[in-house]
């Protein structure tokens, strides 16, 4: 292949594959995103869950890469993560499961995981593998934005992987602006000071926070996560933000139903 051809191919890949998150965010409708732990409830359920979620009308999926010590997660997600590890999930197993995912699935796919497993796989290798498979972005709660900007941003950009950062009600405006400047996809708004899955319904303080962020007119759209569990909380959140992410509530659904009735779960929300 000539240099020019490689260049064209790279551009091609960038626009046809790597831009799925941005393309989706440009659509006028609100985004409903679902998180689940890869390899849960059973090791080989991953692909079927992704396919069923897309068929049910989900806009984006966060695939959880299980970790032994998930600091930012509450009991529901940690338990699913522990079970997934017990089932035999590893970084390599996940990549193997997902290798043909783009033959059947076209919505944006994001891997959410803690930094240590990625560090052990090699950050560059990890990003390269994601690009090969067609993973569009990563969410790494314990990789701070300043470390990312200094050490890893170039690698992510080289492989066309969007890195998504979190903000919380305690994040200072100046820092939100910095996170917005480093981001190129969406900002993950944590709905309250909490780990995942630890609340029900949004009070006036949270709605004020949603509005405050909306009024900042950030360049990146915001997607709200933590505490979204049903139609009501989804509607509340998307009144102010581009979309919302459901995690623990869907994990609980998987625990109770296995891979059955995914469409019913989604239809109850939207």
């Amino acid at each position, binding site marked *: 292949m000539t240099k020019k051809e490689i260049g064209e191919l790279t551009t091609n890949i960038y626009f046809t594959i790597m831009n799925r998150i941005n393309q989706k965010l440009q659509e006028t409708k609100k985004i409903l995103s679902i998180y689940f732990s890869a390899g849960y409830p059973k090791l080989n359920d991953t692909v079927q869950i992704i396919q069923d979620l897309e068929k049910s009308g989900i806009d984006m999926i966060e695939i959880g890469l299980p*970790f*032994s*010590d*998930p*600091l*930012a997660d*509450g*009991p529901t997600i*940690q*338990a699913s993560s*522990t079970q997934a*590890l017990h089932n035999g999930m*590893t*970084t*390599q197993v996940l990549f193997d499961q997902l290798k043909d995912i783009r033959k059947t699935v076209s919505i944006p796919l994001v891997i959410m995981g*803690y*930094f*240590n*497993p*990625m*560090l*052990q*796989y090699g950050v560059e290798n990890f990003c390269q593998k994601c690009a090969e498979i067609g993973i569009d972005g990563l969410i790494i*709660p*314990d*990789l*701070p*934005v300043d*470390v990312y900007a200094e050490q890893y941003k170039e690698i992510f950009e080289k492989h066309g992987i969007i890195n998504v*950062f*979190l*903000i*919380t009600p*305690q*994040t*200072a405006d100046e*820092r939100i602006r910095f996170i917005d400047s480093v981001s190129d996809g969406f900002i993950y708004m*944590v709905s309250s*000071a*909490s*780990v995942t899955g*630890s609340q029900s319904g949004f009070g006036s303080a949270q709605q004020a926070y949603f509005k405050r962020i909306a009024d900042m007119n950030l360049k990146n759209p915001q997607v709200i996560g933590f505490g979204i569990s049903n139609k009501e909380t989804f509607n509340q959140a998307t009144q102010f933000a581009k979309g919302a992410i459901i995690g623990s509530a869907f994990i609980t659904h998987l625990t109770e139903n296995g891979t059955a009735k995914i469409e019913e779960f989604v239809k109850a929300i939207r």
Partner: protein
Amino acid sequence: MSFHVNEKGYYGEFGGAYIPEMLYPNVEELRQNYLKITADPSFQAEFDALLQDYVGRPTPLYFAERLSQKYNAKIYLKREDLCHTGAHKVNNTIGQILLAKRLGKKRIIAETGAGQHGVATATVCALMGLECIVYMGEIDIRRQAPNVARMKMLGAEVRPALSGSKTLKDATNEAIRDWINNPVDTYYIIGSVVGPHPYPDMVARFQSVISKEIKAQLLEKEGRENPDYVIACVGGGSNAAGAYYHFLDEKDVNIIAVEAAGLGVDSGESAATSALGKVGIIHGSKTLLMQTPDGQITEPYSISAGLDYPGVGPMHAHLFASGRAQFISITDAQAMNWGLELSKMEGIIPAIESAHAFAVLDEMTFNPEDVVVINLSGRGDKDLNTYIDYFKL
């Protein structure tokens, strides 16, 4: 080469603050204030007064005559076992509770493994009249009933960590989650030189009173401030950090770090992090830690609950990687035998953690004029049941 933390929170390549954004405001508040507050003369005065009158400092530097004869060197024991609550841990909790008060915090949380840090935290919370919640692995709660009772007597609430392996690392995870859920009024007292910056540096500074006293005491007894060797056990590494602190830049001082080999470094039941660990992230810090090839943190083993942590503080990771400190690992059996040996030779029953440090005497040769300081980090009362079971006493 510097062995102290740099302005970004790193020791060489180790350290930093790899924390979720939810923790950023809390950790940043601490980072911006800890040096300012602890340098304040009124803070220093209150800290020093409590260390003297409440903890019982300075702790003696005891010349161990019989040990010295046997090992043909001048062996001194730094008697941290004589601190109130039975170990060096309280030096740090006094410092942090004073800091928490100055930051206006009302609620204190802590993690504990064997319960020593939990007891030291519950103690200072009682002293200051602050609410105290200690997270402890469900399995450890069963193994360490006397310390659980102590914490309760001191007015603390002991909350079981039910997640993961239900031991120290999970208790730490639960404490961090509590902090995420209570970001405004709560202060997290970490018990060792681990966690995100500034904790490793802050805890090392509070524990550095150990080496500060050693210097003054050696000058009086030997006419020189520096020993030839300073030896300490390392789990997370807080007693070691304190014992090494003022000798880090003194090239003539040999620093010896003693890790728990458990049933043997290659047995699969070990806590020898320097030998078995790889660079990774644990509890917000980049350091050496025991993990699977896939990056999942593994459960270490040592008969001593205070040494079975899967990581090591970033300062120690740097001392290891740079070769500044020599790391030696000691098995359960060696340590237990030394617990008995020290009891019979010097009339001191050591904590099993501290007994590991003494066991290196068998692995080294000294010159008769060598001055060797061993940090006797804690007393053995808490370990009596383990000693009883092990030796069928």
